């Protein structure tokens, strides 16, 4: 197996290993195994279908965090041409946990902004494991205002465990940085489309997520708190993370049912990490569709629609007495 195997994927890995072994035997000329191969491949397809169509919320969380899952820059390099990255918040620093800049999608100019994780230890130290500091949010807002000035639609890609819980982040008012983004994004005079491509970690995700349309990739999650954090607080034990993941209703399907998001983007069988190109193609298709739809709206319609997208989240009752 070339990719990290999750616990629930082990039966598939075993089947794949057996197929590999037989094929090697075939290649070495040790008789005909085509019948056995066919049967194993049928089994593999069936097993994949059973496992991946019945993923539990906790298994989806694991796929969303898969170490080989494509990150923002993987998608940007496949979806966009001419990505021109801009840096810095003009106040304190450049935050590598958020990337952004001009780009074209099928020739259409846009502003791409995304949180960025690292692929290995060195990269993760640089990207701070995809956990933005206040500077990241301030850079993102600055670039959104640049997009507004240029009249460009904004596409945000969200994949973060959350905003960084650090002393420096608090000293430089991470809460304020997120809050200002939430407020100012409501005023943007251009279309904003957000995609949670992996982890949608609470306020840290929402800081890039006040959009006209919000989508989740099939195996991503969007939650007020990590399942581990929820389990630690409500169950007083992290071992209950699986239960917490189910209770929080954090998967794309559940959130669509609740009406909190606009749609779910399909992923290749087994998750986006099995086929980056295919995953990027699905995402690009939706981006182009949304860009087309939103481009017909006036500035007032865009601002009004974005407001109501969040204003109309109700879910409360009214006492009779």
């Amino acid at each position, binding site marked *: 197996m070339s990719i990290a195997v999750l616990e629930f994927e082990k039966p598939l890995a075993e089947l794949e290993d057996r197929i590999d072994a037989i094929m090697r035997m075939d290649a070495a000329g040790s008789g005909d195994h085509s019948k056995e191969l066919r049967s194993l491949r049928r089994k593999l397809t069936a097993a994949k279908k059973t496992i991946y169509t019945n993923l539990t919320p906790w298994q989806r969380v694991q796929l969303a965090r898969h170490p080989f899952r494509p990150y923002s820059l993987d998608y940007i390099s496949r979806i966009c041409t001419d990505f021109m990255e801009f840096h810095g918040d003009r106040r304190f620093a450049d935050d590598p946990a958020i990337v952004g800049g001009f780009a074209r999608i099928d020739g259409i100019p846009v502003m791409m902004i995304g949180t960025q994780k690292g692929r290995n230890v060195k990269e993760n130290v640089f990207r701070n494991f995809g956990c933005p500091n206040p500077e990241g949010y301030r850079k993102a807002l600055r670039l959104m205002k640049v997009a507004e000035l240029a009249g460009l639609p904004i596409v945000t890609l969200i994949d973060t465990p959350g905003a960084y819980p650090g*002393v420096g982040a608090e000293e430089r008012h991470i809460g304020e940085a997120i*809050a200002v983004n939430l407020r100012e994004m*409501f005023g943007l005079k251009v279309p904003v489309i957000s995609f949670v491509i992996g982890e949608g970690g609470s306020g840290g995700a929402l800081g890039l*997520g006040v959009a006209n349309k919000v989508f989740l990739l099939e195996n991503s999650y*969007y939650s*007020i708190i990590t399942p581990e954090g929820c389990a630690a607080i*409500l169950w007083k034990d992290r071992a209950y993370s699986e239960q917490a993941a189910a209770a929080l209703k954090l998967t794309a399907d559940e959130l669509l049912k*609740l009406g909190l998001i606009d749609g779910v983007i399909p992923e290749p069988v087994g998750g986006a990490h099995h086929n980056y190109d295919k995953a990027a193609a699905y995402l690009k298709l939706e981006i182009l569709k949304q860009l087309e739809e939103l481009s017909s709206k006036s500035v007032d319609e865009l601002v009004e629609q974005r407001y109501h997208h969040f204003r109309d989240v109700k879910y409360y009752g*009214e006492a009779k007495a």
Partner: protein
Amino acid sequence: MAAFVKKVKPLPTTSVVPVGVIAHHGIQKQSEVAKRKDIPQGLWEKCKNCNELIFSSRKEENLQVCPKCGYHYPMTALERIDLLTDLGSFQELDPKLESVDTLKFEGVSSYVDKLLANHEKTGLRDAVISGVTAINFIPYVLAVMDFRFLGASMGAVVGEKITRAIETATAKKLPLVIVTASGGARMYEGLISLMQMAKTSGALYRHKEAGLPYIVILTHPTTAGVTASFASLGDLILAEPGAMVGFAGRRVIEATTQAQLPDGFQTSEFLLQKGFVDRIVERKNLRAELTLCLEYFTKRCKVNKAGKSSRKQKTA
């Protein structure tokens, strides 16, 4: 003070309702305080800050501040409303909104049970009381969070009541004041809880675009989702002494970064030094200082012919 008050046009009587409007909470705060003054209960308690023995009734008369060391204990929403409004001026908004277990949250205890228990404990339907009111005859909209109700965590009702309070202030062209206290998100409401951060901030965008002022009063403790939305967006941010205010919890920061947290980390005083808080205000001065701020915003702080403030040093 009296000379000044005469210059101000009183509120139209339609927006002034008797104190009984908050009676459905089962607490008539004003009369309760009066009762306590007449009959000292003689109950002692140990201050959790200075460990001195203090009269509970003395602490309550002292606005829930320890008479010995000045430690600011949390106030209930109704006590806070008493402190910051003119007697009889508070007209409550949306008293009937109540939380719903949308997610059918299956955990160690059910959300419905939690809501019921907290309702019984506090007499509140949820963690915010909001209303149109006045302070020293200046009309404004006030929303107050009550930490006793599920740690004043933000669910759909908290978000909706805050949003409606903001929208009322915008529509009536009134200044807005929110007294914050919150343990963070209402986990039982999942992503619905997160969306309240966007909703409240969106309403504040419109309030700001309308050119109307918003004052935040940070009280102990204000954290997480509330910090990362409306608590951080005030044109002026006042804070009570010693209040814990921050985004991430101390334990989370320690566990993530293995860092030694600086002395007084995430307190009002720390945030003043780091440039987030405009002013730390002791509770005994809060009414006067809020009045003064609102006077400046509503152009009631007139300059007399000699070029001196008509209020002079009276609120200092």
